[in-house]
C-alpha cells in the first residue's frame, strides 16, 4: 500500500519545472496572445491580424519562410544523419570531427550571418578568391536584390553551416542509445552496411529523428538574423517581421499577431511530426 507521501511525491517533484515553465513560457505566451487581440486603446479586436495580413511584406514573408523551411530542414537532416553515421562508425579521429562540426553551435545567428555576408558580398572572400584564381573577371553579385536564387542559396548554405550541428548532436545521442545486440544480430544474418542502416539504424533512430525534426522546424520558423544579414530588406520572413514590427515599427500588437501566427504554425508542425513519425505501441513491442 502506497503512503500519502509516495502519492504526492511525483507531483511535488514536478512543481519546480511547472513553476519555471509557467513563469518563463506560459505567462509570456498568454500575454502575447492578449497583446495580439487587444486594440491600442484597449478592448478586443481582430484589427492587428487584419493589418498583418494586409501588410506589403506579409505574403512575401509567408512564402520565404516556407521556402526556407522546405530547403533547409531536409538538407540539414540528411547532412546531420550522414555526419552522425560517419562519427558513429568510430574511425580513427572521429572525436575531432565531432568538435569541428560543433564549432558553429557556439556562434550567434547574427554573427554567423555577418560572417557569410563577408564571404558572399561583391568584394567578399568568395569573389576575391575566384578573381585571383582567374575564374572570373568581374565579381558576381550573389546577393543582388533581383537574384532570389543567389540569396536563397547563400542563406541555405549559411543556415546549414550554422545549425546542422544541433541536429547532429541529437542524432548521435540517439545512435548511441541503440543496443549493440541489434547490430550483432544483423551481422549474423549477413546484412551489409547499407541494409543494416536502412533496416536497423533508421527505424531505431526514429524517436531521435522526430525530436530533431521538431526542434529544427521550430528553429526554421524562427530564422531571421542570418536572413537579415544576407538579404537585408530583400527577403522578409515571418519571425523577422515580428521583430521589425516590435523594434522598428514599434507596434507590439501587430508584432504579437505575427508571434501568434508562428506559434500556430509551430504547433501544427509538431503535431504532424508526432503523428507521422509517432511510435506505435505494436512497433515498440515487435
Amino acid at each position, binding site marked *: 500500500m502506497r503512503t500519502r507521501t509516495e502519492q504526492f511525491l511525483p507531483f511535488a517533484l514536478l512543481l519546480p519545472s511547472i513553476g519555471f515553465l509557467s513563469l518563463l513560457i506560459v505567462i509570456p505566451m498568454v500575454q502575447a496572445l492578449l497583446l495580439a487581440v487587444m486594440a491600442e486603446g484597449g478592448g478586443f479586436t481582430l484589427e492587428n491580424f487584419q493589418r498583418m495580413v494586409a501588410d506589403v511584406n506579409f505574403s512575401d514573408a509567408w512564402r520565404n519562410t516556407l521556402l526556407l523551411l522546405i530547403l533547409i530542414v531536409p538538407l540539414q537532416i540528411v547532412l546531420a544523419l550522414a555526419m552522425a553515421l560517419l562519427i558513429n562508425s568510430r574511425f580513427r579521429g572521429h572525436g575531432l570531427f565531432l568538435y569541428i562540426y560543433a564549432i558553429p553551435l557556439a556562434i550567434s545567428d547574427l554573427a554567423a550571418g555577418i560572417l557569410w555576408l563577408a564571404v558572399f558580398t561583391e568584394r567578399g572572400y568568395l569573389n576575391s578568391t575566384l578573381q585571383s584564381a582567374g575564374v572570373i573577371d568581374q565579381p558576381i553579385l550573389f546577393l543582388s536584390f*533581383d537574384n532570389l536564387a543567389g540569396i536563397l542559396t547563400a542563406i541555405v548554405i549559411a543556415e546549414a553551416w550554422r545549425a546542422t550541428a544541433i541536429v547532429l548532436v541529437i542524432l548521435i545521442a540517439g545512435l548511441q542509445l541503440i543496443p549493440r545486440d541489434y547490430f550483432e544480430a544483423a551481422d549474423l544474418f549477413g546484412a551489409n552496411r547499407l541494409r543494416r542502416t536502412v533496416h536497423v539504424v533508421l527505424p531505431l533512430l526514429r524517436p531521435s529523428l522526430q525530436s530533431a525534426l521538431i526542434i529544427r522546424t521550430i528553429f526554421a520558423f524562427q530564422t531571421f538574423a542570418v536572413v537579415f544579414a544576407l538579404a537585408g530588406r530583400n527577403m522578409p520572413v515571418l519571425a523577422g517581421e515580428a521583430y521589425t514590427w516590435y523594434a522598428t515599427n514599434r507596434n507590439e500588437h501587430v508584432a504579437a499577431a505575427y508571434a501568434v501566427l508562428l506559434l500556430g504554425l509551430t504547433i501544427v508542425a509538431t503535431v504532424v511530426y508526432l503523428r507521422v513519425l509517432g511510435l506505435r505501441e505494436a512497433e515498440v513491442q515487435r
Partner: protein
Amino acid sequence: MRGMSSRASALVAAAAILVTACSTTGTPAGGGAVDQGKPFVFASTQFSPVTEQENMRKKILAAYQGASVDFITDQSAVILNRISAEAKAGGEQQIGLVGIENGEFAALVAAGAFDDITKIADKHKDQKIPQDMLTLGKVGGSAQVYIPWMQATYFMVASKQALQYLPTGADVNALTYTQLVAWAKNITDKTGQKKFGFPLATDGLIHRLIQGYFYPSYTGGLVTTYKSADAVTMWNDMKELWKYSNPQSTTYSKLSEPLQSGEIWLGIDHVARLIDVLKAKPDDFVAVPAPAGPKGRYYMSVVIGLGVPKSSPNKAGAEALIDHLLKPETQILTLRENSFFPVVSVTMPSDLNKGLQLEADAVAKQASAKDAKVVPLPVGLGAKGGEFNKAITDTFVRIVLKNEAVPTVLDEQGAIIQKIMTDGSVKCWGPDGSSSGPCQVK
C-alpha cells in the same frame, strides 16, 4: 527559498560591483562642490556601435567627476520602452539622465516623464546654444524638456575615382538630383558598374533620406505633398537612379562599408555612418553637400537632447553630468571620438583628424549653401514614428524595388500615412509648415 534569495542578492551585489568598477570615472576632485550621491544610469538611443559606446564610457565620461554613471544604449525602441516603463512605475528609478533624438521626446513628454529643466538651461546661457534648438527642446510646450546635447546631419560622400565621370557643368559641391542621376548613369555607361548606394538594409536610414532630402527638395513638403505631381517626378527620378545603383544596396546598413570596399562610389547617409570611411581613407574621398531639387537643397538636422526623468534617482548628479557634457572640451571630444557636432559655441581645433575635417567642411558647406533649407526629424509622431517610417520606406520599396505603379502606391501608402496622422492627431511639421488639426496627405 532563503538560499535562492541570498544567492540572488549575491549576484546583484556582484553585478553592482562590476557596474561600479566599469563606470567609475576617474578619481573625484578634492574639495570641489561636485555632487556624489546615488549612482545612476545615463540611457541613450545614440552611440549604439560598440566602439562608440567604449569611447563614451572611457573617454567622453572620463573627466566627469560626480556620482558613478552607467552609460547604456541599445536599439531606440528598447531604450524608449525602458524610459517609459520607469516613468510609469514612478517613484525613484534607475535612469538619471536620458540622451535621445528630438523626435523621440514627444511621446514621453505627453506621458509626463520629464522634469522642467529651464534652470539648467539658463545656467548655460553664455554657451550660446542656438535659440531655435532650445525652442525645439520645449517640445511644443512652455517647459524646457531637454537641453540640446549634440547634433548631426546627412551628406554625400563620393570616391575621387568617380569625379572624372561628373556630367559637364556640374559642380560637385552644388549638385542637383538631376545631375546626380546623370553622374551615376555616366559611371554605369563608362565602367559598366552600378556605383550609387542607398542605405536600404532593414536598419539603414533610407526613410530619413526620403523624409528630409528627396521629398522636400522636389516637392517643398512631405505629408502635404505626398501624392503631388512633383512627388511623381521625384519617384520617377529615384527609379532612374536605382538603375545605376548597386543592387546589393538592400544589404547596406551604413554606407561607409561599401564605400570603403569600393562596391559603391557615391552615397548619401548619416555622418556617423560615413565617418569610418572618411577617417580610414581621407585622401580617396570627397564629402559634399546633399544635392538640391527644384524646391531647394533640403537637409535634415538631427538634434540630440538631454532630459532629466521625473523618476531620476540623483537629479543633482544628472545636472552635474549635463554641465560636463556641455563643456566646450567635452563637446569637441565628442566630435573627435563619435563624430557628433557641438551645439555650444566652440573654437574648432586646428588638429582635427583629416576625415573629421572633411566631415566638418561638408556640413558647413551644406548649411551655408545659398539654396539650403533645413528640416527636423519628424516631430510629434511619438510611438507612431516607427510606423510612419515604415509607410515611407514601403513606398520606396514598392515603387523602386518592386516596380509597382507610382499613383497606386501613393494612394495606398497615402491612406496608411493619413491614418497615422489622424489617429495620433499629428500636426504638420518642418517642411509642411503647421496645421491646426491632423496633417492632411495631399
